[in-house]
C-alpha cells in the first residue's frame, strides 16, 4: 500500500520536475540527498539557510545533464531542533527515502542520528556541525565542511592576542571575557577558546554561560562588564548575539567584540544594526589569501540566484554540496553505478590533495576535469577541504571587521599558525 502510493507520488514529482526542468530529461530515479536539518523550532533558520545554496548547486548539476542522466533532488528531514525528532527524521531519510547522502545534521541532532548513519553507512557531509563532539566520533562516512569549533576557538584567541591579526593600530586584548550560549552548537567553543587564550599567554577574566532564547541578557552583561573587559568573545546564535550586544551597549560598554563564523555575514549587520556592530571582529573560513576572491564571487552568484545575501552556513553548504555532487559524478564515472558504500570513498577521492591532481573550485570545473580523465582535488570556500581520518577539515581563518557598515578582511591566520 505504502509502496504503491509512494511510487505514484514519485512519478508525480518526477513529472512536475520534468515540466520544471524543461528539456533536460531525467529517465532514471533521481539521486536523492537528504537535508537532515531543523526547519521548524528554535533553529529553523539553519535549514532555511542551507537549502537554497544546496539547491543552487543541484540546479548547476541538473541543467548540465545531471549525473549519468539522473538528477539530484532533495528530501527534507526536519529535526525540529529536538533530539528525538532528529532520530525519526533520519530514519525516514535513510530507510524510506533511501537517500544517497545526507547534508547535515547540526550538532544537536548528530547525537541522536549518529548510530543510524554509521550502521547504514550513509555518507554524511555536514556544513553545520562544528561541535568538538564530532572531532573523533565517526570514521569513513562522516565528513564536515565546517572546521571544528576547537580550531575556530583557537583562531579567535590567536587573533585577539596577536596585533598582526587585528585591525591596524589596534592593540591586543589584555582582559578578555567569554560569553557562551548553552546550546550544543555553542558550548563546544568554550573550552577551546579558554584554553587557547591561556596558551597564548592571556587569561580569560570571566566565562559566562547563558540560556539561549531569553528576551534579554542584562544580568549576564552586567556580570561580564563587572570584570572590566577590553574585549568580549561572544558565542551565540544571531538572535541572542544581537540581544547581548544591544544590552551591553545600553549598559555603556564600548570595548571590542569578537564573534564566530555564525555572525560574520551581512545578515547579522542588518539584524543587530550597523551602528551597533561597527568595529566588531568576526571569523571566516577561507581557503587562502586568494580564496577570498572565490568567496566574493559566490556571494554575487548567490545574490543573483536567491535575491538575498549569503546567510550563515552558506559557504559551508556550497562546499558540502559540491563535494557530494562531484563524488557522485566520480562514482558514476567509475563503474556507472552510485551506491552509499562507494560514494564515501569518492568523497575522499575528489577532495584529497595529490601531486597529480587538478585543483577545482566548482562542480562544473570538476566535471570538465573528470571528463578529461583527470583526477581532481576540490578546494572550497572554507578551506582546501582535505578531510582527515575523522572527516575533519583544517582551514586558515580570515579575521574580518565591520568597517563602514560592511565586513572587510583585516588579516588571514594560516592553518599552521594555530598549532
Amino acid at each position, binding site marked *: 500500500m505504502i509502496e504503491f502510493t509512494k511510487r505514484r507520488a514519485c512519478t508525480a514529482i518526477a513529472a512536475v520536475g520534468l515540466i520544471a526542468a524543461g528539456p533536460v530529461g531525467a529517465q532514471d530515479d533521481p539521486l536523492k540527498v537528504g537535508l537532515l536539518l531543523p526547519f521548524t523550532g*528554535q533553529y529553523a533558520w539553519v535549514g532555511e539557510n542551507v537549502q537554497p545554496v544546496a539547491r543552487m548547486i543541484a540546479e548547476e548539476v541538473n541543467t548540465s545533464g545531471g549525473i549519468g542522466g539522473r538528477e539530484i533532488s532533495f528530501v527534507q528531514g526536519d529535526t525540529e531542533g529536538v533530539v528525538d525528532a532528529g532520530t525519526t527524521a533520519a530514519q525516514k531519510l535513510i530507510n524510506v527515502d533511501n537517500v544517497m547522502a545526507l547534508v547535515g545534521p547540526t550538532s544537536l541532532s548528530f547525537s541522536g542520528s549518529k548510530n543510524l548513519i554509521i550502521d547504514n553507512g550513509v555518507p554524511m557531509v555536514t556544513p553545520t556541525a562544528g561541535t568538538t563532539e564530532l572531532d573523533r566520533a565517526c570514521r569513513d562516512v562522516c565528513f564536515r565542511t565546517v572546521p571544528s569549533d576547537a580550531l575556530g576557538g583557537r583562531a579567535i584567541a590567536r587573533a585577539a592576542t596577536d596585533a598582526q591579526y587585528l585591525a591596524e593600530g589596534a592593540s591586543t586584548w589584555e582582559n578578555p571575557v567569554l560569553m557562551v550560549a548553552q546550546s550544543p552548537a555553542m558550548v563546544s567553543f568554550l573550552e577551546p577558546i579558554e584554553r587557547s587564550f591561556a596558551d597564548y599567554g592571556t587569561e580569560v577574566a570571566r566565562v559566562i554561560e547563558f540560556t539561549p532564547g531569553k528576551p534579554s541578557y542584562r544580568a549576564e552583561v552586567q556580570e561580564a562588564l563587572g570584570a572590566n573587559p577590553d574585549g568580549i568573545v561572544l558565542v551565540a546564535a544571531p538572535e541572542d548575539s544581537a540581544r547581548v550586544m544591544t544590552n551591553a551597549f545600553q549598559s555603556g560598554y564600548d570595548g571590542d567584540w569578537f564573534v564566530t563564523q555564525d555572525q560574520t555575514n551581512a545578515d547579522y549587520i542588518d539584524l543587530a*544594526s550597523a551602528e551597533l556592530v561597527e568595529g566588531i571582529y568576526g571569523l571566516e573560513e577561507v581557503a587562502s589569501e586568494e580564496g577570498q576572491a572565490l568567496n566574493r564571487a559566490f556571494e554575487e552568484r548567490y545574490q543573483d540566484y536567491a535575491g538575498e545575501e549569503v546567510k550563515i552556513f552558506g559557504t559551508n553548504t556550497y562546499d558540502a554540496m559540491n563535494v557530494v555532487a562531484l563524488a557522485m559524478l566520480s562514482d558514476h564515472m567509475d563503474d556507472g553505478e552510485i551506491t552509499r558504500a562507494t560514494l564515501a570513498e569518492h568523497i575522499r577521492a575528489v577532495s584529497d590533495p595529490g601531486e597529480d591532481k587538478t585543483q577545482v573550485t566548482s562542480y562544473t570545473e570538476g566535471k570538465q576535469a573528470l571528463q578529461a580523465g583527470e583526477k581532481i582535488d576540490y578546494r572550497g570556500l572554507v578551506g582546501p577541504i582535505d578531510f582527515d581520518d575523522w572527516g575533519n577539515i583544517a582551514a586558515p581563518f580570515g579575521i574580518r571587521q565591520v568597517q563602514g557598515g560592511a565586513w572587510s578582511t583585516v588579516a588571514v591566520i594560516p592553518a599552521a599558525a594555530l598549532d
Partner: protein
Amino acid sequence: MIFVQTLVYGLALGGVIAVSAVGLTLAYGVTRFINFAFGEFLTLGAFFCLLLAQAGLGLAWAGLAAAVAVGAVGVLVERAFYDPLMSRGLLPLLVTSVGVAFVVQNLIRIFAGSNPVRFPLPLMRPIEVGGLFIPREQLIILGVALVTMLAVHLLLRFTMLGKKMRAVADDPMLARVAGISSRRVLDATWFVSAMIGALGGILLAITQITVAPQMGWHFLLVVFAAVLLGGIGSPYGAMIGGLLIGLAMELGATYVAANYSYAFAFIMLILVLILRPRGLMGGSG
C-alpha cells in the same frame, strides 16, 4: 548600585510580562481555560506591527493597528475553535489550544520564514543618571505597560462592558442567569484579551530586538507563571505577578546564577503556590 540597576531592568521585563499576563487572564475569566495559543497573539502582534511599519506606517500607529487586527483574530479563533467545545470541560479546550498554537505559529513561518528579523526600533543611547543606565527602550516599555494597565483598570471599573466582564468572571452561572453572558461580552473579552496580548508581543519584540515565529510560544511559560502567581482570572493579580516574575528573573540572574534565571521564576511560583494555593489575589474559595 548594581541592585538599583537590576531593579530597573527587572521592572521593565516585568512590564512586558505583566501586560501579556493581563491579556491571558482576562480571557480566562470568561472561558475558564488556559489558552496555550495565547503566545501566538504575541507573535502575531509583533509581526503585524513589523509588517505595517515596513509599509511605512509610524511605529506607534503600526502598533495600535496591529493590536486591533490581532483582537479580531482572537475573536475569530474563539468562535471557530473554542466555542464549539465550551461545554466539554477543561482538557478538550486545552488540547485544542495547543493545536491552534501549532497552526498559527507555522502559518506565520510559511509567510515570514525562520530567520529572525530586526524589530524596526532604532538603536538608542541609554540615559545615564548618576551611574545608572536607563535604556530608552525600557522607558517606552514601562510607559506602554502603565498606560495599558490603566486602560484595563478603567475598562473594568467604569464601563458597562467591564462590569459585565467582571460579573461573568466572578460567577459565570449567576451572570448567565442574569442574562449577561451574551455572545457580545464573550466576543468583546476575547477581542480585548488578544489585543492586549498583541501589545505584549510588541513590547517583547522591543525588549528582545528581534522577531521570530516561535517568540510568543517560548515566552508563554513565563506569562503563565505570572498569571498563576497573581491568581488566575484576576487582572490585578496578573499585573503584580508579572512584575514579581520579572524582578525575580533579573535579581536571581544577577545575584545567584544567570543560567538559572527561568528556574527562579518557576521556583518563586511554586513557593508562592505552596503558601497560597490560589495565587496572591486568587481568593480562598
